[in-house]
């Protein structure tokens, strides 16, 4: 009852949907955080291998796999749509890199580093908000 009163007080200044979404949002999940951390770490470390085309292609494939893993994990947690969207964005970025390696194995070292930078930056943004989810 008290919870309902509190929610009613706050809801006077907010739309019902926003309030409900926020109240029901999925909490912090260690596995989710570990996966996004792995993506960030892989993106950082794999940049060191960009000179080696064969190794880079394998690394980008591995990174793509990890992003899919995060997306699959986040998608089926109830009230977790925002995190699932972020995970989808990371999949998209990794797929862009993967697709280019599939199209042309002679990808330049510069591209490899810049694409990994994009993935690393995005994973860091996601990691910061995922880490602040309610405990």
């Amino acid at each position, binding site marked *: 009852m008290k919870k309902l009163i509190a929610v009613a007080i706050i809801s006077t200044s907010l739309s019902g949907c926003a309030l409900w979404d926020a109240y029901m949002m999925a909490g912090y999940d260690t596995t989710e955080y570990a996966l996004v951390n792995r993506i960030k770490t892989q993106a950082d470390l794999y940049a060191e291998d960009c000179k080696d085309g064969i190794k880079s292609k394998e690394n980008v494939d591995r990174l793509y796999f990890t992003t899919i893993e995060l997306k699959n994990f986040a998608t089926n947690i109830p009230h977790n749509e925002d995190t699932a969207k972020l995970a989808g964005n990371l999949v998209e970025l990794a797929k862009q890199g993967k697709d280019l390696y599939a199209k042309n194995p002679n990808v330049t070292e510069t591209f490899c580093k810049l694409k990994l930078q994009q993935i690393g930056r995005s994973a860091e943004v*996601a990691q910061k908000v995922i880490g602040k989810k309610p405990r």
Partner: protein
Amino acid sequence: MNLQQIAQSYEDYTTAYNAGQISADEYKSLLEGLEVEKAVSMNAEELQYKEQLNTAINAAISAVSMLG
């Protein structure tokens, strides 16, 4: 990623492309990546807003609980 950072990245990619350091396909992929980075920022902001709201709701619940 804010607009200034996106503009900076765009300039860096264009410079690399004009200098022949990356191919046209690579340049295109990087620009598409910038679009995704913009989406990441927006989605992260939305999640952050909900987290702040969630904190406010729980603080209000605690306050009301203390009343009775």
